[in-house]
Every structure is written in structure tokens, then in C-alpha cells.
């Protein structure tokens, strides 16, 4: 019997929602790491019991948490519970919260256009390797990509990324964050990442070199050169495992797709009521079925007309239908953040959306109808799903 585990990060802790494959009745556990911001939790595709969590605080900084038993127990990598915290020669074990930029720190653009030194603030997104539970990538603010190959005990930056015109990157409203990491299942050397507000980047040599992949993006009101090579505020990109050369993007404004691994993009906003938004995701079994949550504007971060509507395109964009059944259709002014939508891989495909109002909605039929799994959590920052055998 299959089962579903939904990992929810919120402003004040993490929650785990579990159900059998019918996805009708849910158990809610938590809060884990109560009182801390949990930007993201994610399970390893290679070992579903291996989970990683980013725990942060304005007071005490960044903590990485790891579970090796599917979320029953957690520890900071390098300091497992019950074991000595130092090596026999007295050295501390692990430095799982140490994120130090490689080499010269350098400067990026500040909000006012002046140079500003890179400063580590937090981990926005953790992306475990597709094949090795001990290898995991971290997308951080100020934007950079780190990798751990020892289960999160220590982290090393992949510094070439910041060399790609990093002096022209600038923070979006949420900070200068590297929020999306897509690992190509057909090519272990290829990784896509996205940064607000720098754009999308690709490596074809496992991070040794990078280049921007933003051709076709237009930022008419945000950049002096609307077709700039870097500086675009990409909010999220998504791919289907079976078609890793096809990418979908929710930009600050505009929904786009690329059919050539990011070499060029074209807009597929079509009949959306607004093309501003944060998350974008792909159906587990239909590579041309994609989902977005339109948000009114860059200053009005809530759905148009007070109606929470997920939009689905079965044509890879341009033609969109509103999915409303079971979602609030009046007086709804929540937001859905970029990492707060996920799909499971059951058939029919399940879809999950978390809101800044603390609701997590689930659909067990690819979005045709929805029901709240839980209504009153702290503001939801991220939603990830594990489909368990």
C-alpha cells in the first residue's frame, strides 16, 4: 500500500502530514523545530528515510537538520544524539551550519544600485542528489550554491556560479536568494539553478563552470535593459523527469517555457488572469501538464478577486483552466510562495499547495477538486511531497 508524506516548512516550525494512498484522511504531526523558520525540507530520492531541513532564525542564524528515519528523529549532521560531539583528538565533529563563500567574497548590487558585499543569511532550498543520500545541494541567500557530500556535515561552495556577472545580481523583495535547484536525471553533470534577481543559470560540468540561460526573458519595468543577460527576477523553474530539456518558468511577471534546456525562452502566459506568481510545477505523469497560482501583482501578493485558483495547462502553457473546486472563492487574500506547491507520483497525480494563511490544500485528482488537509498552521514557506511504496 502506498503512502504520502507531505513536508511543510512554516514561519514557526515544520509539520509532517501523512496519509495512505487514498489521500482522504491525514495525520498531522509537529511542530518540529518550534519557533524557527523552516524554509525548506526535502527527502532524498535515493533513500526516502533521509530528510534534510533548513532551520533558520534572525537571532541564531542557520541550522541544518537531518533525519535518517523518515522524520521520527532529527539531528544536526555531525552531532548525532547520544554520541560524543568531539573527535578523539578534541576537534568538534561537523560544522553543518558553516556556509563560507570561497575566495574573495566580492560584491553584488544592493537595492539602491550600489555595490554590497556578499553576506550569508540563510538556506532557502535543499536539493538532495538523485542517487546518493549523502550528497545534497543548498541554495542560499546571498545567492550561492553549496554542496555537501557527507550528509550535510560540511559544505563547500561551487564558486564559479558567482563569477557569472555576480557583480550585477541584485536582491529581489525577499532577498537575493538561490531558490531553485534542478538536477537533470539524464545527465549528472547538468544542473539548473535560479536566483532572485539574477535569473537562471546552467552548468554542464557539475558546477565547475556556469552560464546564464535567460535569452527570451523580458523585464520591461524592472531592468534598464529588458533583455539583459542577468538581473531577471526568476521566481521558480520546473521540469519533468522524462523531458529534462523542457523547462517551465514563473518569472516575476510572465510564465515561460524553454524547449532547449534554457537556451531560449518564450512566453506561455496565454489566458492567465495575471502572469505574476511564485510557484510552478509539472504533473507527475504528463510532461505537458503544468500548474501555476496567479497572484494579482508584485505589490498585491494575493489572488485576483479574492479567489484562490490554481491554473492548469494541459498544453504546456498558453491555454489555461482555473481549478477552483474546494478552494476558497471569496475573501481569500493569501499568497502561495515559490516552494509551496508540490506533486506526488501516484495515479492520479496528487497536488499540494500551502498558503501564507497557514492552509495546506490537497488534490488527489490532479487538481480537479481540492480539500484542506490542515487550515491553521503558521504561514507556509514550503511544501514537498514524498510518495512512499
Amino acid at each position, binding site marked *: 500500500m502506498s503512502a504520502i508524506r507531505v513536508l511543510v516548512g512554516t514561519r514557526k516550525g515544520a509539520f509532517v502530514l501523512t496519509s495512505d494512498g487514498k489521500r482522504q484522511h491525514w495525520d498531522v504531526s509537529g511542530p518540529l523545530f518550534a*519557533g*524557527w523558520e523552516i524554509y525548506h525540507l526535502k527527502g532524498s530520492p535515493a533513500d526516502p528515510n533521509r530528510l534534510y531541513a533548513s532551520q533558520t*532564525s*534572525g*537571532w*541564531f*542564524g*542557520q*541550522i541544518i537538520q537531518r533525519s535518517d528515519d523518515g522524520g521520527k528523529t532529527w539531528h*544536526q549532521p*555531525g*552531532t548525532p*544524539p547520544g554520541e560524543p*560531539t*568531539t573527535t578523539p583528538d*578534541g576537534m*568538534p*565533529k*561537523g*560544522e553543518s*551550519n*558553516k556556509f*563560507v563563500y570561497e575566495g574573495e567574497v566580492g560584491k553584488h548590487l544592493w537595492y539602491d544600485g550600489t555595490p554590497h558585499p556578499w553576506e550569508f543569511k540563510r538556506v532557502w532550498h535543499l536539493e538532495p542528489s538523485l542517487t546518493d543520500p549523502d550528497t545534497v545541494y543548498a541554495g542560499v541567500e546571498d545567492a550561492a550554491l553549496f554542496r555537501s557530500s557527507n550528509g550535510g556535515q560540511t559544505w563547500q561552495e561551487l564558486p564559479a556560479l558567482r563569477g557569472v556577472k555576480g557583480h550585477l545580481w541584485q536582491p529581489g523583495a525577499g532577498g537575493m536568494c538561490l531558490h531553485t535547484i534542478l538536477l537533470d536525471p539524464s545527465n549528472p553533470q547538468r544542473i539548473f539553478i535560479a536566483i532572485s534577481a539574477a535569473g537562471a543559470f546552467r552548468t554542464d560540468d557539475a558546477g565547475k563552470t556556469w552560464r546564464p540561460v535567460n535569452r527570451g526573458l523580458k523585464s520591461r519595468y524592472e531592468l534598464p535593459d529588458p533583455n539583459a543577460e542577468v538581473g531577471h527576477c526568476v521566481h521558480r523553474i520546473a521540469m519533468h523527469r522524462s523531458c529534462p530539456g523542457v523547462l517551465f518558468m514563473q518569472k516575476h511577471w510572465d510564465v515561460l517555457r524553454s524547449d532547449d534546456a534554457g537556451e531560449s525562452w518564450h512566453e506561455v502566459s496565454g489566458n492567465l488572469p495575471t502572469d505574476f506568481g511564485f510557484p510552478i510545477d509539472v504533473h507527475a505523469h504528463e510532461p505537458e501538464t503544468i500548474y501555476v497560482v496567479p497572484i494579482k501583482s508584485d505589490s498585491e501578493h494575493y489572488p485576483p478577486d479574492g479567489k484562490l485558483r490554481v491554473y492548469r495547462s494541459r498544453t504546456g502553457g498558453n491555454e489555461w483552466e482555473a481549478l477552483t473546486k474546494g478552494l476558497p472563492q471569496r475573501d481569500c487574500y493569501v499568497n502561495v510562495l515559490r516552494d509551496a506547491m508540490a506533486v506526488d507520483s501516484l495515479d492520479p497525480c496528487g497536488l499540494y499547495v500551502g498558503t501564507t494563511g497557514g492552509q495546506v490544500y490537497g488534490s488527489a485528482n490532479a487538481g480537479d477538486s481540492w480539500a484542506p488537509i490542515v487550515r491553521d498552521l503558521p504561514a507556509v514557506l514550503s511544501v514537498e511531497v514524498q510518495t512512499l511504496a
Partner: protein
Amino acid sequence: MIRVVLPAHLRTLARVDGEVTLHVEGRVTQQSVLDALEARYPMLRGTIRDHVTKKRRAFVRFFACGQDLSNELPDAPLPDAVATGAEPFLIVGAMAGG
């Protein structure tokens, strides 16, 4: 022995209840107390001060004997009452909402 009081979130991370007691070699300063604390509880490294610069995190404050010691030099001696264990060294999260 030096007595240190941690804020609740750091007690959770360090898996301790109540005060922490530390043996500190040599002069008792902010730096030597934090060095000893982090050696005993490495999971606290980076939570009170930066890993590299050792600068105090902005929203962490240090108090002892009714004084705010947050902006004292890291190698300045702490009050005798802290050094003798009569009074605890308090590590406090700043009152900044949240």
C-alpha cells in the same frame, strides 16, 4: 566553574536543561567562555557568533551582574563574580519581536 545561561532555542539545540557549567582555562573573557562553550557544544558554533569573524550575531546579547556586556571587547575580562561562578553569564536573544 563558569555558569552560562543559554536562551531556550539554544538549550534545545545543545540538548541541555538549565544552566551550563564550563571549565575555562586562563583569563575569563567573553571569548574564552564562548570558546569553551562551543568546544563542549559544537552544535552552537555559528549561532552566537560568526564562524569565521567571531563577531557576535546582531540579535544576541550578553549580560552579567546586571550589566549589558554585549559591546565589551571580546578579550576584556568578565566580572569577578562570573569568573568565580557566583553569577552566571547570560546569553540572551534580543527583544526584537518575531
